[in-house]
């Protein structure tokens, strides 16, 4: 820790105005960089692909995917778990690190939270469209209806609905509250009246009153305190989706914590994948410093080790249980038809992060970027193995089958990446990507120091 502590979280000699200047310029600038249009265009076309595949899905039915019996859950659920996992880094960074007073969170929490929101949006899409009768999704919500029926509250899927909705809402509120003072800044800096009006509308008439700051901070801390257990709970519940079942490979008590670790792991990977290009293109190196990358790398390393431990325990318990089905499952993962995926996953999630032991490598942003990408792929594979590979060979050999994704499976998955990036690009363009007022705070503290 002290190794990095002499490393500043802000570089150079910025002043209140210079910071304000620089960050708000990204949103208020008149000239949108061409690169932005290119990136946005790409992302948007993928988004169109998503809409196309969803349209076709609604006309034809989930049969257009590679699903079958025994493998009745495929890409949809894999992607859901993957996205929701990614959606964990943001709130974790802002909430937990806030409570632990980790000042280095300041320059990354804003877009980490945004990233969370968008990932959760992508995730939330899948449980909806994977239904056989998507039009009836609202039957999962408790409301007085003419059928006199209720959701079945023992089902983890109902827990999911509440967990994901709560998580999405709280994250949004948290993000928004954090934004208010900066929106005020933009309101005050904008030249054109209608721009002022728009930011002003969302700023809710914030006027930086000392008393307001007081209450603002206590409320912000309280939400952080609420969000922290919430983050843990959400992916624990997603883990329970599987742990609750009787299926070998799903029915493991380790699932919830294991899923949380995996979530943070992939979440930080995604933050890195986004922040490294961001600081490069908008040269924000002075705010997002090597120290940030270094710390995030450390967290990845730590969570990566937890995930590795999870794999180890699955294998151990599989063997130790003495249960034929469990033992077969382990064998099938290593040697079955999908073995190659399992090996690749081990390489990506267990081996790749090991390079992060070395300080020099942790500070090589290009290498970090690559490792993060590899981890993202690895975590996706992990979810595929948990969902599909466990299903395809369970209790009765007579019903064993295979799962082969169709073009529509892929289109939908890639499409959500499009949705995600589209939102990210819009965010970068119109909202301060770094919390300006918190940076000012840092500067003032620095001044005192």
């Amino acid at each position: 820790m002290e190794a990095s502590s002499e490393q500043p979280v802000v570089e150079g000699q910025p002043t209140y105005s210079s910071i304000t200047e620089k960050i708000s310029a990204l949103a208020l600038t008149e000239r949108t960089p061409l690169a932005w249009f290119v990136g946005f265009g790409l992302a948007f076309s993928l988004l169109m692909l998503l809409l196309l595949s969803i349209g076709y899905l609604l006309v034809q039915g989930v049969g257009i995917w590679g699903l079958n019996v025994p493998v009745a859950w495929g890409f949809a659920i894999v992607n859901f778990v993957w996205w929701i996992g990614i959606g964990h880094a943001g709130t974790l960074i802002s909430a937990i690190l806030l409570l632990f007073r980790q000042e280095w969170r300041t320059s990354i929490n804003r877009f980490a939270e945004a990233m969370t929101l968008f990932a959760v949006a992508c995730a939330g899409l899948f449980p909806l469209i994977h239904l056989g009768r998507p039009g009836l999704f609202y039957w999962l919500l408790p409301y007085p209806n003419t059928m006199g029926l209720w959701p079945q509250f023992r089902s983890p899927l109902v827990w999911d609905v509440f967990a994901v909705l709560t998580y999405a809402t709280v994250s949004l509120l948290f993000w928004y509250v954090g934004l208010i003072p900066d929106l005020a800044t933009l309101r005050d800096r904008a030249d054109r009246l209608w721009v002022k009006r728009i930011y002003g509308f969302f700023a809710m008439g914030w006027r930086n009153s000392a008393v307001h700051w007081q209450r603002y901070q206590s409320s912000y801390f309280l939400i952080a305190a609420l969000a922290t257990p919430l983050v843990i709970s959400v992916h624990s519940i997603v883990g329970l989706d599987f742990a609750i079942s009787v299926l070998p490979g799903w029915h493991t008590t380790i699932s919830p914590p294991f899923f949380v670790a995996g979530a943070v792991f992939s979440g930080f990977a995604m933050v890195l994948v986004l922040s490294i290009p961001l600081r490069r293109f908008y040269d924000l190196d002075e705010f997002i410093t090597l120290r940030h990358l270094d710390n995030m790398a450390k967290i990845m390393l730590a969570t990566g080790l937890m995930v590795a431990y999870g794999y180890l325990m699955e294998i151990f318990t599989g063997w130790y249980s003495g249960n034929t089905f469990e033992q077969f499952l382990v064998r099938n993962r290593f040697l079955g038809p999908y073995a190659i995926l399992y090996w690749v996953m081990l390489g990506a999630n267990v081996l790749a992060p090991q390079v992060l032991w070395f300080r020099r490598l942790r500070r090589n942003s290009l290498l970090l970027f690559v490792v993060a990408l590899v981890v993202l792929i690895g975590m996706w594979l992990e979810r595929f193995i948990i969902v599909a590979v466990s299903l395809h060979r369970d209790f009765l050999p007579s019903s064993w089958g295979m799962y082969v994704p169709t073009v529509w499976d892929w289109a939908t998955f890639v499409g959500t990446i499009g949705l995600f990036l589209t939102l990210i690009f819009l965010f970068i363009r119109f909202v301060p990507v770094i919390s300006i007022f918190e940076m000012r705070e840092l500067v003032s503290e620095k001044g005192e120091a």
Partner: protein
Amino acid sequence: MTANEQRLYGLMAEFEEAEHLIEAARTAHEAGYREMDAYSPFPVEGLAEAVGYRPHYRMNWIVVAGLAVGAAAAFGMQYYASVVDYPLNVGGRPLNSWPAFIPVTFELAVLVAAFAAIFGMFALNGLPQPYHPAFNVEGFARASQDRFFLLIHADDPQFDPADTRRFLQELAPQEVNEVEP
């Protein structure tokens, strides 16, 4: 004269440094001014106290209440649905499978509490308030950027346009402005 007083909301002094503002606020408070407000581009330690704000724990209680209400409502709903309204034998599980009801209970508790925290804050701060006399002051825009302001309300018992202006001038601000209502 009186007319003049009427159309005044208060006087606002502008400072460059947070420390300067704090001590200005303190002196004003010692000078007996009560109806004051200070503005800074970021939360400044001790500023609120300086203008005479006594911190209390109302926010916390609001949130605790939120938690309680959310949890009670959630568990109540689940119990009613699965035990009272339409008891169904689901996989031979007991009607009141309370362990299975915990996740939803927790989530709803957090949800309600979070809403309480935010709307509580808004309520106490009297937000949203898109229009505020302070915005009439030229240069107040910098309150959200790099400048610090001290406002003394016209309705402060001790307020007098001339004296108060003089008083503020003595605090050596960048400048002092009249705030129209």
